[in-house]
């Protein structure tokens, strides 16, 4: 079983099994059908509840000013269940994030996965929504 298939098996289990659970809020403001991949420089990492956030500046082509994006993550507890540490992201690091963008077009999104400065790849917690 490839890693991709294994991941989808986990996601399927979580979705099917999540009926009884309360969520922090619906994730319908994010376009979960689409993904955006961004590589940029971290300006801030906020390790807070109920969500952690990464602020990232993504260089534009042709010398235009960098575009600022806000990345929403799960909570510290849920991220730790997915193998995160509070010190995994620091200002001025170069990271790559895959996001489900906001449906209203604003430059923000929900993290799907991140490639950290040291090359490690982490998801948004142990499940597809970071458990929120």
């Amino acid at each position, binding site marked *: 079983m490839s890693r991709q298939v294994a991941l989808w098996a986990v996601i399927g*289990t979580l979705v099917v099994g999540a009926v009884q659970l309360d969520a922090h809020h619906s994730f319908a*403001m994010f376009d979960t059908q689409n993904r955006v991949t961004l590589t940029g420089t971290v300006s801030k990492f906020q390790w*807070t509840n109920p969500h952690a956030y990464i602020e990232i500046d993504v260089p534009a082509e042709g010398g235009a000013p960098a575009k600022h994006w806000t990345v929403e993550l799960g909570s510290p507890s849920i991220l730790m269940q997915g193998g995160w540490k509070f010190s995994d992201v620091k200002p001025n690091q170069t990271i790559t994030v895959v996001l489900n963008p906001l449906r209203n077009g604003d430059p923000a999104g929900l993290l799907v996965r991140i490639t950290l400065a040291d090359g490690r790849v982490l998801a948004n917690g142990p499940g597809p929504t970071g458990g929120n």
Partner: protein
Amino acid sequence: MRAHALAAAALLATVVATSVGAQSAAPPDLSGSWAPYRGGRGADPKLAAPPATEILLKGDYKKSWDARRVAEAEANKKGEPLATPAVECVPYGFPRMMSVALYPIEILPSAKQVTIITEAFSEVRRVYMNEKQQPIDEVPPGYYGHSVGRWEGDTLVIDTVGIKESIWSYQNMPHSDRMRITERLRLVAPDYLHDQITIEDPVALEKPVTYTLAYKRLPNYKMVEFVCENNREYTDANGAVKLRLK
């Protein structure tokens, strides 16, 4: 001499039987941290939660619940989901606090009190053991109400009244101030706990609702602090969740 030996053997048997009896009467150990357990493919079906009973609300309670569900579905379709109180960092209260996403709970039993702490929003319930429940009208309505508990064999039975009407119940149901919740907590296997929850509310419900939450023990888990702060998400004028960008 032989009679003495027999008497001694009988005495020994009594002592052993008494001590075994005392051991089996000791309540099971529910202490520690527990993660929501969903079973999944290949899992023993006895360990996962059995299905819940149907929710049948009365009159205006049904109308308001149905209206909210329709509004939620429409808002989600537009990509502007309605905010819940938790978006504004308001705690869940009982019973929803017992099953928030993937967050564990911690159970701290003692002779006089069983304390339950949730990781999400750090909510705390105190269950007073072997005390008489207060009349509903004597309990100040709150997020956790007033809970009393007792052991019935291997089952911890908890009775709770006094949950504030503004706090959503199971599946975000509305409820009256007459709501009474009975829980039966039992180890279905050494590391699997079921909390069978029955909600009775003669004012709001046509019949009681029963559902079960399943948990798996998390050995050596250290609960993570959770203070809801500096919330980037907020509720806009239309009641939708919005993200404050920087």
